[in-house]
């Protein structure tokens, strides 16, 4: 029986944020199960049951595709993120999976040096423990408080 302690969940989130903020996104899909759901949506849409996301991926392979597009295909200006991730709150544990809600703020550092708050919201997660004993996301919904995306969303939240 997997243990979803505050400490383990905190470390999972810290590693996740560090991976993105340190520009090591190649390692980002490994935080997810093979069959997973990663969606960036707004609080308003989520509350209304609207499913379409700004980003929508339901396999780990689709997350890899996000990374390769980011690295090789898409045209946008270089920028970086800094995630500040709050305390994970365990909503419940069922069938070996923990439902966890975690608040986040992401500031964006643009090429011209400007730093601004880019997104705030909460992660709604389903966390499971893999055969290797690692915690992973079976589902991570990044639910943004605002429904305005400033310019574009290239790097995942």
């Amino acid at each position, binding site marked *: 029986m997997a243990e979803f302690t505050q400490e383990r969940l905190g470390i999972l989130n810290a590693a996740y944020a560090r991976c993105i903020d340190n520009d090591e996104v190649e390692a980002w899909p490994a935080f997810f199960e093979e069959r997973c759901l990663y969606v*960036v*949506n*707004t609080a*308003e*849409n989520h509350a209304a049951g*609207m*499913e*379409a*996301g*700004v*980003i*929508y*991926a*339901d*396999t780990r*392979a*689709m997350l*890899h*595709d996000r990374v*390769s*597009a980011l690295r*090789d*295909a*898409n*045209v*946008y*200006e270089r920028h970086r993120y800094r995630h500040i991730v709050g305390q994970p709150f365990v909503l419940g544990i069922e069938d070996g999976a923990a439902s966890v809600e975690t608040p986040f703020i992401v500031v964006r550092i643009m090429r011209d040096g400007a730093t601004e708050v880019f997104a705030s919201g909460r992660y709604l997660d389903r966390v499971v423990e893999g055969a290797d004993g690692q915690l992973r996301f079976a589902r991570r919904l990044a639910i943004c408080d605002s*429904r*305005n*995306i*400033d*310019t*574009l*969303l*290239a790097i995942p939240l």
Partner: protein
Amino acid sequence: MSHSDTREPRTWEPGLTRVPYWLYRDQEIHDAEQRRVFQGPTWNYLCLEAEIAEPGAYRTTFVGDMPVIVARDEDGELQAFENRCAHRGALIALDDGGQTRDFACVYHAWRYDLQGNLRGVAFQQGVNGKGGMPPEFRMEDHHPRKLRTASVAGMVFGSLDEDVPPIEEYLGEEILERIERVLCKPVEVIGRFKQTIPNNWKLYMENVKDSYHASLLHVFFTTFNINRLSQKGGVIVSESGAHHVSYSKVAHQPQASAEYSAEKLRSDMEGYALADPSMLDGCDEFGDGVTLQILSVFPGFVLAQIQNTLAVRQILPDGLDRTVLNWTYLGFQDDTPELRRMRLRQSNLTGPAGFVSMEDGAVGGFVQRGIAASRDQEAVLEMGGGGIETQENRTTEASVRGFWNAYRGYMEI
């Protein structure tokens, strides 16, 4: 001294193949656009009928920078009026939408019905026989400006001009047909997003109409054969140039086109592949093989079908160098779960994080900054000649020139 050094920075020679850069950075132009274009004899997208299906349902929206309420009244009729209280001008409705019997302004509680008529003035007779409005004050003389409304394929448009032609005439048969091709049955809103982009609204509209850039800028279009200029397709330009449709048909084999290889395009990435190609699985849901159709209605509306993603965009200027895009993603009410899932996966192509649209949100900013010191220089629009006619190829800037033809007409410049 060369000609361009002495020229007034506010001139524009007649014609459509040159666009002076001052047009994108000029406050007077911006103000004139509000009056002549957005509030002029044009039809502006307001919302979907599906969003205000029941009597008493309303949404707040914009026509240019004018806040607008669009509502369905008790008789089921569409109504639209300025979201501005006739008393001191506060917003009448503060929410994005909802269900109501009437509207009460929060400032001094004046009340309006669903048609935008003033129905109540708080303390109109005063209190204890003192104060109140003068006896000659008549409520019927005071109301926010009302818009004409028209509905096309479930979309609500509004106009502030009494003399605007009927919407069918405004759009023309071909554009209308292409709207009805996509919005052919009852829709369901599956997502709503707002995106703020760092450039003048006209640069975004030009980009929408620019079929030339599509397979040059967007790796996903070219590499995955979603849109290549060598595919069968074309551009339809409405009579005055105001509206357009560009479309292309499915290409079943990857096309090795000699022109494409010769150009050595950044967007043509050999060896670039998707780890999960099912993202691009789609079906020919309209049965005509057209997998991409981008349609614009002057001044600021876009309906796009990219494979199975269907979305409308409302383009709103927000000052000289900011533009707001309101995206509404659509499905049909009768979507099978499989088709809906296809749409959700393909929606990765569009919107602020779209594998394709991300770039459209970025390039306008590159132009806006590129032209910062060049008020008296001009853009060159000579791809495909100088005309604005419909054609069966997309290596042309005909529809961009069409935009400017309509724009010059409305602006009288």
